[in-house]
């Protein structure tokens, strides 16, 4: 399989983007955006990870078989999250024992 040669310009551009996003992460840490704090931090992290996977790890230029393996990694992560959350989000559904006012033990 021939290796795709990525132009240096792309690497520098990716590097600059990662540094920029890191600075953004630091900057937004100084503002309290309430619930958005988490979502913004995660969005930046996911964007950075995607760029690293596609360009630095050459997945963008790799065969479909490699795509399948990358995809399966994310699929398994989804399995972990969905089945774990199936517990967290349904714990409150059960009726409380008589005399209890909440699931939290007094």
């Amino acid at each position: 399989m021939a290796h795709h040669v990525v132009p240096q310009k792309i690497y520098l551009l990716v590097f600059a983007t990662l540094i920029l996003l890191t600075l953004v992460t630091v900057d937004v840490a100084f503002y309290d955006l309430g619930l958005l704090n988490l979502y913004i931090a995660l969005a930046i992290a996911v964007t950075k990870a995607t760029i690293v996977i596609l360009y630095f790890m050459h997945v963008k230029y790799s065969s479909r078989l490699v795509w399948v393996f990358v995809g399966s990694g994310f699929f398994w992560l989804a399995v972990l999250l969905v089945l774990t959350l199936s517990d967290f989000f349904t714990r409150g559904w059960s009726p409380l024992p008589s005399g209890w006012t909440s699931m939290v033990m007094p």
Partner: protein
Amino acid sequence: MDATPINAHSGTPGEPIRANYLNVNYGLKSWLLTTDHKRIGILYLISITIFFALGGIFAALIRLELMTPEGDVVSSEMYNKLFTMHGVAMIFFFLIPSIPAVFGNFLIPMMIGARDVAFPRLNLMSWYIYSIGGVFTFAAMALGGVDTGWTFYAPYSSTYSNSNVALTAVGIFILGFSSILTGLNFIVTIHKMRAPGLTWFRLPLFVWAHYATSLIQILGTPVVAISIVLVALERLLKLGIFDPKLGGDPLLFQHLFWFYSHPAVYIMILPSMGVVSEVIACFSRKRVFGYPFIAFSSLAIAVLGFLVWGHHMFTSGQSVYAGMIFSVLTMLVAIPSAVKVFNWTATLYKGSVSYQAPMLYALGFIGLFTIGGLTGLFLATLATDVHLHDTYFVVAHFHYIMVGGAIMGYMAAMHFWWPKMTGRLYPEGWAKFAALVIFVGFNLTFFPQFVLGYLGMPRRYHVYPPEFQVLNVMSTAGASILAVGYIIPLIYLLWSLKYGPAAGANPWQAKGLEWTTPSPPPPHNFERTPVVTEEAYAYESKPYPEEAEVV
């Protein structure tokens, strides 16, 4: 005196000494710096045998304590450490690397007609990583041990335990990478290095089983590594991850831990299933019945195995709705497991069956794995699990899978490929005797534990009510028979290295590329790249050409 050199492996005077992977070079350095997959397999064999012996000693002490209802051999604290260290040594350092790292390493390149694995140096690195992880864990044991159970449940492991949790955790964290690297190597090797003509559906089922195992190793192991890091972060930096006081959730640890550790059961059992497929076909002189079903059932077990972990948590406070989902999903794993058992049985039907030692172990596997698997369904059922959870029923169930299944497969592999690995035959009579001793010892050890558990004896206690003593004495007696059963092969296999008759290339008249090359194999396995023209297990067709014609 006759000065003609005698070939050490064929024993024939005058025959030139052939270079093989054992005699190609000598000395400790040649082994410690080897990148030959066969030598790395042997390095793993020696390392895991040490941990097997260590885990066995801990097991013996546990059974000794449980001979009497009183806690008269060790203290309760020491007992906690014994069962923890037994689990850690046996699961992480013996069972998980056992068949993949020893026989997978040795055989996969040979089975697919390759000179080595895809990344030979990475392969050696994985053994070094295993050894470093082993040193840390061994140090933790020597410095006083660890008492959390092999499951390291938070908050006990993260907050309360005063034993060597951190050191053990570091050892297991390091060890995980060796498992990941082995899996990675196998997947790339199987994808990229198959001999001409060796299509996916001509691969031996041993290779399919290892492909499925490797997927679990790569996809699951990072999660347990992260869980261990999170425990360390909470212990050291007081980050609230598992401790409710800090905003964490203790069940999160169990989710993360079992996401890896349940599939890890399949890391242990799938390679054994691969071994059984090879052995059953060879000693029935028949094609495996339903080859594609056995191949795909390995993948199905690997995938479904990731969806069932919550069955370890039915009584933990996990949502009952999640419990229902996990219960149903767990039942599904029984389907591909049963497909395998039925297909092996169908392979035996009208086969020309012979009962050599590897076959005895393989048949033992089928029976014991079936009992282990079916009792798993008792535990997967929400309501019965409430009664059986954390009792000796669970202990018996998973030992039927891990000892009755995984180790039976390991012993089958050891006997089946020993002539290939060493060039020597082992004494068949002793081997059959040992197989029988192991079978009897195993059942006497663990069957009474089903009854004990059903009657309500909890696991992980060193004292118990006197009415449970008879069954516990039976179990301890069985354990001592089992120990003898494991020591006998150790003796005769070592004996055979020097005194065993030469094996020849294919002592079992088996199919598969590994049998077309001399025993022990040459350093690069094949003099010429083999070309595969027929399916695996073509036992009805003409036999493979003899060694002399191939080389």
